[in-house]
């Protein structure tokens, strides 16, 4: 049964299909692929039908058929009418009736009203309101930012904020109510009144006031007219200039230019006669123009026009002439002006003043003209630079003279001559230095580094030899004197002669120094055996030692303790020598003491060094030994951990069982052999120190800098102390401190009210937020 029915329906379908296709076929031209299409569709349909064969999914195929041009399989199509169906059309009866008009109207009204959008949910609305309120409030409050910042940075804040105006009445008011009472006052006022001196306003007398106020109407009018006239003239002139600028005729411009030049020359001539100084200035200008011309190469056949003319010149006489003309012009323009000096010669001694004035200034001008020339400049400066590098003050004047002479002459290319000259000068300066000997020696040693020339070296050698000789001779001289202080040291007797007593201990020292110096000259690297005297020596003989700083540095590390203590210091002699009352025989006592001193010294030094070594060891951070005896090997009394455990790793220099402690900072007394400085921290003092960095500081140095200045009255003047300890906030007792108001800081609008409006009426929303709302609703 069902199969039958299905077959029937299928048949019907196919028929209908054909029916539907009919009009199409009529309308469209028959194409080949059309058939294909149809076939496909049919196939699809068939498949569908088959798939719906099983009971449940079977659906009724709705079929409708209307009379229309275009027949759709599924829908009512309104295509046939060609226009949209309006609701009113449905209502419209065949015959119009008035009773339906009202309904129609209502309908149209309904239609005109747009559909109301769905309201947002409550949370979203609230959120938007909040956002708007926040933005507005933030904007209002941002006005206060500078005020807040200022108050935060202020050194002191004084509350209450509104200050009472100090009641300073103007002096006039005070004086008006005041009367002269004492006879002296009366007398003074009488005098003032008599002379019409100001009593109230102390600065201006009535006359002065009047003079200040005075500017009559006529004057003002005249002034105005003048201004008007000037303005009109200016506009005329501008218009004229504009017109002339627009003229395209070359000839006209040439003529104008020539005229101008002539006029200028004439003026210049006149000026020269009348005002020579101004003329010179003018001349300078002309000179500058010449320079510009020389620089620009404007008339030197290098332009486009000139080149074309040069090609033509072979054949065209006119072109040749034009070229000639240009060249002559170039010559003319670039020629040096010697008008003034020549004219000066012509004029002879007619005007003394001019004679006196002009030549100098002309020279100056020329110099000036030379000045900006970069080539000349360079040669000058290079010379001066060299002078600077040589650092020899004696040479400077020579060099300067040299430079001047060069600049005066024509431009000479920096060439061999100059180099030769310089070398010559160097040599000369060297010779001078050798004469100056000691003072200049450091410079000389530098020189050797720089130049490395044989000559310099040999000269230095000679110089050092001279020095040595000098020292030796002095030593010999001093040795004769040297006996005296020694004698004195041995037996200081009060009845010694005065000249001997006055012999200064310094003398001895210088003697020793000299000896040492001699040694040093011979063996440069030998150590100074007397560090005690080192400071004094270096003070006295900085010039004699070319490499003093180097040696000093070396010495710093290697102060020998033995030397430090065993140095023979010069003995002091005094006028009064203490008398010894002791009963002991003096010689015996001396002897004993000497022995004691001789033997005591070594012990003292050795003990101290030992103590220091111990202290250094104690302060060193300890390594951590992790070896467990007996772990992984035999254990017991008398067994040592194996060599493997104790061994140090060759690469890392660390055993697995030995954690090396990090090396601490270098000891403060590392280079001080005679000192042990305790490196232990003073924990009692540390308790009083700052241990947390306050806020804006990131490094403790920054913070330390702010607390280095003491603020106590012990270290400061009273004023400074008061200023340093001013309280941050000052309040007036018994006064209410009101919150800050806009008026207090100079704002006019009260921002508080704005804020309150928003809070009271949160439904007022700006357009921007309306848009936002819409967006939300769309989403």
């Amino acid at each position, binding site marked *: 049964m069902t199969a039958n029915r299905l077959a029937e329906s299928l048949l019907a379908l196919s028929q209908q299909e054909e029916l539907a296709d009919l009009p199409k076929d009529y309308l469209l031209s028959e194409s080949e692929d059309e058939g294909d299409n149809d076939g496909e569709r049919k196939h699809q349909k068939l498949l569908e039908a088959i798939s719906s064969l099983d009971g449940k999914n079977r659906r009724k195929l709705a079929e409708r058929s209307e009379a229309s041009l275009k027949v759709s399989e599924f829908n009512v199509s309104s295509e046939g009418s060609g226009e949209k169906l309006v609701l009113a059309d449905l209502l419209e009866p065949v015959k119009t009736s008035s009773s339906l008009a009202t309904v129609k109207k209502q309908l149209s009204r309904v239609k005109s009203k747009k559909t109301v959008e769905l309201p947002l949910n409550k949370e979203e609305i609230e959120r938007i309101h909040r956002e708007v309120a926040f933005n507005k409030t933030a904007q209002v409050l941002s006005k206060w930012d500078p005020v807040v910042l200022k108050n935060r940075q202020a050194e002191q804040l004084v509350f209450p904020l509104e200050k009472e105006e100090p009641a300073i009445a103007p002096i006039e008011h005070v004086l008006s109510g005041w009367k002269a009472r004492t006879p002296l006052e009366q007398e003074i006022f009488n005098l003032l009144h008599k002379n019409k001196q100001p009593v109230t306003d102390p*600065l201006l007398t009535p006359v002065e006031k009047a003079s200040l106020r005075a500017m009559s109407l006529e004057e003002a009018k005249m002034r105005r007219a003048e201004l008007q006239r000037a303005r009109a003239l200016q506009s005329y002139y501008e218009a004229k200039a504009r017109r002339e600028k627009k003229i395209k005729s070359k000839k006209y411009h040439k003529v104008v230019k020539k005229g101008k030049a002539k006029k200028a020359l004439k003026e210049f001539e006149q000026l020269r006669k009348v005002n020579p100084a101004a003329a010179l200035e003018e001349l300078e200008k002309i000179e500058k123009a010449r320079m510009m011309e020389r620089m620009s190469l404007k008339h030197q056949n290098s332009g486009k026009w000139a080149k074309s003319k040069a090609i033509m010149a072979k054949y065209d006489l006119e072109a040749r002439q034009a070229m000639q003309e240009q060249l002559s012009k170039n010559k003319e323009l670039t020629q040096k002006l010697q008008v003034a000096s020549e004219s000066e010669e012509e004029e002879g001694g007619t005007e003394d003043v001019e004679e006196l004035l002009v030549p100098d200034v002309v020279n100056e001008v020329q110099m000036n003209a030379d000045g900006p020339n970069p080539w000349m400049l360079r040669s000058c400066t290079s010379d001066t630079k060299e002078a600077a590098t040589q650092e020899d003050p004696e040479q400077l004047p020579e060099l300067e003279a040299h430079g001047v002479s060069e600049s005066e002459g024509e431009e000479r290319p920096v060439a061999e001559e100059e180099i030769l000259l310089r070398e010559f000068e160097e040599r000369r300066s060297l010779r001078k230095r050798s004469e100056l000997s000691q003072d200049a020696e450091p410079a000389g040693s530098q020189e050797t580094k720089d130049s490395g020339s044989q000559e310099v070296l040999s000269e230095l050698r000679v110089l050092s030899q001279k020095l040595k000789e000098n020292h030796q001779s002095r030593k010999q001289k001093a040795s004769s004197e040297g006996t005296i202080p020694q004698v004195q040291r041995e037996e200081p007797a009060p009845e010694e002669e005065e000249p001997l007593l*006055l012999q200064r*201990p*310094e003398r001895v020292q210088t003697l020793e120094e000299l000896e040492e110096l001699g040694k040093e000259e011979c063996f440069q690297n030998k150590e100074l055996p007397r560090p005690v005297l080192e400071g004094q020596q270096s003070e006295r003989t900085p010039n004699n030692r070319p490499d003093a700083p*180097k040696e000093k540095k*070396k010495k710093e590390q290697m*102060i020998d*303790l033995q030397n*430090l*203590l065993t140095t023979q*210091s*010069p003995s*002091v*002699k*005094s*006028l*009064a*020598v*203490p008398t*010894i009352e002791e009963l002991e025989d003096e010689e015996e006592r001396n002897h004993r*003491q000497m022995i004691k*001193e001789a033997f*005591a*010294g070594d012990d003292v*030094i050795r*003990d*101290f060094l030992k103590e220091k070594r111990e202290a250094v060891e104690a302060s060193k951070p300890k390594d951590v030994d992790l070896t467990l005896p007996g772990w992984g090997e035999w254990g017991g009394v008398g067994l040592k951990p194996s060599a493997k455990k104790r061994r140090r790793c060759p690469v890392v220099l660390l055993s697995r069982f030995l954690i090396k402690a990090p090396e601490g900072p270098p000891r403060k007394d590392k280079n*001080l052999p*005679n000192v042990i*400085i*305790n490196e*232990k*921290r*003073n924990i*009692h*003092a*540390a308790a009083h*120190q*700052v*241990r*947390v960095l306050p806020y*804006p*500081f*990131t*490094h*403790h*140095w*920054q*913070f330390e*800098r*702010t*607390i*280095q*200045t*003491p603020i106590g009255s*012990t270290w*400061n*003047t009273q004023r*400074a102390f008061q200023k*340093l300890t001013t309280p941050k906030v000052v309040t007036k007792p018994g006064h209410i401190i009101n919150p800050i108001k806009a008026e207090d800081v100079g704002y006019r609008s009260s921002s508080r009210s704005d804020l309150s409006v928003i809070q009271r009426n949160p439904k007022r929303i700006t357009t921007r937020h309306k848009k936002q709302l819409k967006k939300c609703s769309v989403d």
Partner: protein
Amino acid sequence: MSRPRKTNFRPKNAYILKKSRISKKPQVPKKPREWKNPESQRGLSGAQDPFPGPAPVPVEVVQKFCRIDKSRKLPHSKAKTRSRLEVAEAEEEETSIKAARSELLLAEEPGFLEGEDGEDTAKICQADIVEAVDIASAAKHFDLNLRQFGPYRLNYSRTGRHLAFGGRRGHVAALDWVTKKLMCEINVMEAVRDIRFLHSEALLAVAQNRWLHIYDNQGIELHCIRRCDRVTRLEFLPFHFLLATASETGFLTYLDVSVGKIVAALNARAGRLDVMSQNPYNAVIHLGHSNGTVSLWSPAMKEPLAKILCHRGGVRAVAVDSTGTYMATSGLDHQLKIFDLRGTYQPLSTRTLPHGAGHLAFSQRGLLVAGMGDVVNIWAGQGKASPPSLEQPYLTHRLSGPVHGLQFCPFEDVLGVGHTGGITSMLVPGAGEPNFDGLESNPYRSRKQRQEWEVKALLEKVPAELICLDPRALAEVDVISLEQGKKEQIERLGYDPQAKAPFQPKPKQKGRSSTASLVKRKRKVMDEEHRDKVRQSLQQQHHKEAKAKPTGARPSALDRFVR
């Protein structure tokens, strides 16, 4: 109230005053004067101020009061920090200018003694000086003949007004030495080793044979401190109210006299202590030992702060100058040395004295006195801050017996010498500070003023544990605890809150924010940081190498063949 504190001595035609004394330091204006608006400076009367603005201040004087160490370069700081630093610097400048300006009030000038060209001042004897000076100053030179009670120790009070002395055989006396008014005189019937005023002249500490006793200015015994026994030397630290005692038993004991408590008893482990002096700059006690070392002590540390080997023999005397810069020591090896205490502890100058100095003392203005047998020698420096030059004595004086105690009188050009024959008060021109601080130590204060000062001084008492070698170090941050705290915080939180956040590239427009480019940018920054690190480490290596490089002979090309 004018006082002839200054003693300029001009013996008959022999000594002339230096003319340059009148000329003062060149007045270098700090800033060029600003003539901003001359009209605005016109007063009511219309007259113009010829010297507008504040008076100029000499730069060197201002520099003296500047305490911020600007040589140290700070790491980069944020704007907020920078503003704070600027405020601090401005404050410093302002206060130092104010202080420099107040120098004007120090009207008094120090005295001096000058020979005619070539003449040795050391040959001028006290009689000459006394003859040349005014009566008031001449009265300050006196001798007390006290032959009966043995060699005397003496001490001036901090104001320089009172003198206390104690003889070996028990004679103790205190007097207002200017007016010569005796306050008390007793015999304690026991050997007196040392005597010292406490913070004011009303209290007197006497180191007697067994114990330390404290008397008041009436001679009434107030305390007997048995915990300080066999004391040989006494020192009083006025700002800490500490009485330091060195004993025969080898203990250095600090006694807080304001509360009567022993703050610290330190064992010096160096035998009998009988050489002691204090550094007035940092209140560190210097002890001299028989093994030639001088040790520096603070009550906060059990061990000495520093130990300096000064002499081959034992140390006989130590003295430190008022600025804490120089220390003078004399030893059994007959040498007198002046050490620099500013970190190097090296001898600046050394002299061998014929018999060695048994006693040393510095004056307020840096004069050094040494007592050798029965002679005192005084040396003076060139300037104020220079060490005394030992080449030529400034003054010498012979006493009637061997010297046993020496002290310069504060604010006076007077040197007090205690010897076997009694007490001698010598005139030493230029020894004392001419200007005194009336609030700190006023020689003319009344009893009421003294009481007021006492209260204030007690309120400002410096805790004993703050004594350290460099008192300025207290104004530094305790870096060790700071770092410790930081480490602990990191451990507690599990991360470093101050660590720099890793670089996060900013998103960019127009397709440049692709993942690849982000990574590339990140990599770039990372590489840059890495390069910086490498550069730094290389620099350090260079430094090390440069240090390690032998500075000897230049390497020769043949060195490579050396086996």
